[in-house]
């Protein structure tokens, strides 16, 4: 995928956030990453698959293989081919049977860019809704060809039209911080994971205030590794002014409950 092929771009993103590539990234070493996770206190990491032209693809088979090789470290979230509904549902069934925990939808970075409320995604959402499978939607950051792909409006429609579907907005809907927090206030099925876009970026204080308030049960910790080093990100995050009770939920409990993990 892009983040290991276009290393200059990755390192530019990382340095914009104020981090330097750790040994695991510069050396592309899983052994180093496991050490860094241990040092950071990260007991489980959620790997999201990818089906994209822009960012490269990571197959569900690869995710399944990694979870089998490192069952005490990694969990996987399956990607789908959104242009073929029947195949997408087969992919989900296969992935869930193999132990993957959720489905990731990255509408703006598909080979045919889509918005989160694209009609072709609706049978896929309906399937996840019926099977109680959480869905991660990349609806923030560089989600698609332009800023409209991180707009909260399409996401709001999905949340309203599938009120029982649990949706994690990866990249936290950033930069539409006020707006995504309004959605979270209005739609109890939305979980917010600002990940890399929390790091000293505009809106940070508002995310944290929400995590300390109404969003305590629906805020999720994530490093976006390899765009942030897991250790440095964790050190930074744990020093944030998040109340201890909220912090415990944000860094652990919320994810365990959402994905029904046995950790």
């Amino acid at each position, binding site marked *: 995928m892009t983040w290991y092929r276009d290393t200059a771009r990755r390192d530019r993103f990382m340095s914009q956030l104020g981090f330097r590539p750790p040994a695991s990234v510069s050396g592309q070493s899983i052994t180093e990453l496991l050490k860094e996770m241990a040092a950071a206190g990260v007991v489980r990491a959620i790997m999201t698959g990818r089906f994209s032209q822009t960012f490269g693809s990571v197959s569900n088979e690869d995710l399944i293989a990694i979870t089998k090789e490192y069952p005490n470290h990694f969990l996987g979230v399956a990607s789908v081919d959104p242009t073929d509904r*029947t195949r997408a549902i087969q992919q989900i069934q296969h992935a869930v049977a193999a132990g993957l925990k959720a489905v990731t939808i990255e509408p703006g970075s598909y080979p045919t860019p889509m918005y989160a409320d694209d009609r072709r995604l609706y*049978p896929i959402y*309906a399937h996840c809704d019926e099977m109680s499978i959480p869905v991660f939607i990349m609806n923030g950051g560089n989600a698609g060809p332009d800023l409209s792909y991180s707009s909260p409006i399409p996401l709001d429609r999905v949340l309203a039209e599938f009120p029982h579907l649990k949706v994690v907005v990866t990249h936290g809907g950033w930069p539409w911080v006020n707006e995504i927090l309004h959605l979270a206030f209005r739609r109890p099925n939305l979980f917010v994971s600002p990940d890399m876009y929390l790091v000293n970026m505009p809106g940070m204080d508002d995310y944290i205030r929400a995590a300390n308030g109404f969003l305590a049960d629906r805020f999720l910790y994530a490093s976006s590794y390899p765009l942030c080093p897991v250790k440095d990100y964790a050190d930074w995050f744990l020093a944030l002014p998040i109340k201890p009770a909220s912090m415990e939920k944000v860094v652990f409990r919320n994810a365990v409950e959402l994905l029904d993990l046995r950790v």
Partner: protein
Amino acid sequence: MDMKIIDFRLRPPVSGFLNARHYMKPETRDRNTRMLGFEPAPSASKKSIDLLLQEMDEAGITLGVIVGRNTAALGSFRNAEVAEVARSYPGRFVPVGSIEASDRKDAMRQITEARAMGMKMFNLEPGAFAWPMHIDDRRLYPIYAYCEDNAIPVIVMSGGAPGPDISYTAPVHIDRVLADFPDLTVVASHGNWPWVQEIIHVAYRRPNLYLSPDMYLYNLPGMDDYIRAANGFMSDRFLFGTAYPVCPVKEYTTWFLKLPFKPAVMERILYHNAARVLQLST
């Protein structure tokens, strides 16, 4: 004329059908009937099912596809009533349920119930829902997916005056549905009129589209193009429908039978195409 005829769009004056706008507002209906150049059928004016059955016999219509209605704008009645009408007049009617699909789970419940009543086909009139939708509205996609997976053909009202403005008949919407669900059989009621050239292009491109121009064929612009398409590549996907009570079945059929369709094509249009879509055993 010894040819069996299936009328693909007919709303008899009985039971719940009387609660839809066609019978609640006869003056509007009669205005449309007269604009086409017909006089209202006696059965429609008198709301007499017995007269209608007589008129169907005179027209040579063997079977009427009675299409339910479940819309805020044009009225609604229960699919159970549609099924009951078909049961009460055995051999005369094929019931098609109508689904209000604003809420996916409720729509699925309606479909499951209607299938249990023996219905094999459904009608969607999204432009007339309380919250009008285009044919390719995202909220309809799980319904289309279900119908495609279960080989259930659908009728969509994508022509005539199905919604608040002309965008509700724009053929780009049905084109997307046909492309996204290539194994779903879709009947465009009202033939997607007035976008005649465009819908014939869509039909040329998408083999899962059937056209039923029904009342909008009657001396209206585009008529010659519909007929030419039916005589050519669309002979297997063109359907006969009177849209009764808007058109009187007898006069419409008499007129239709004189249209310049090739004899082999006429037979398909009047019966075989419909029988195939409806999965009739004959």
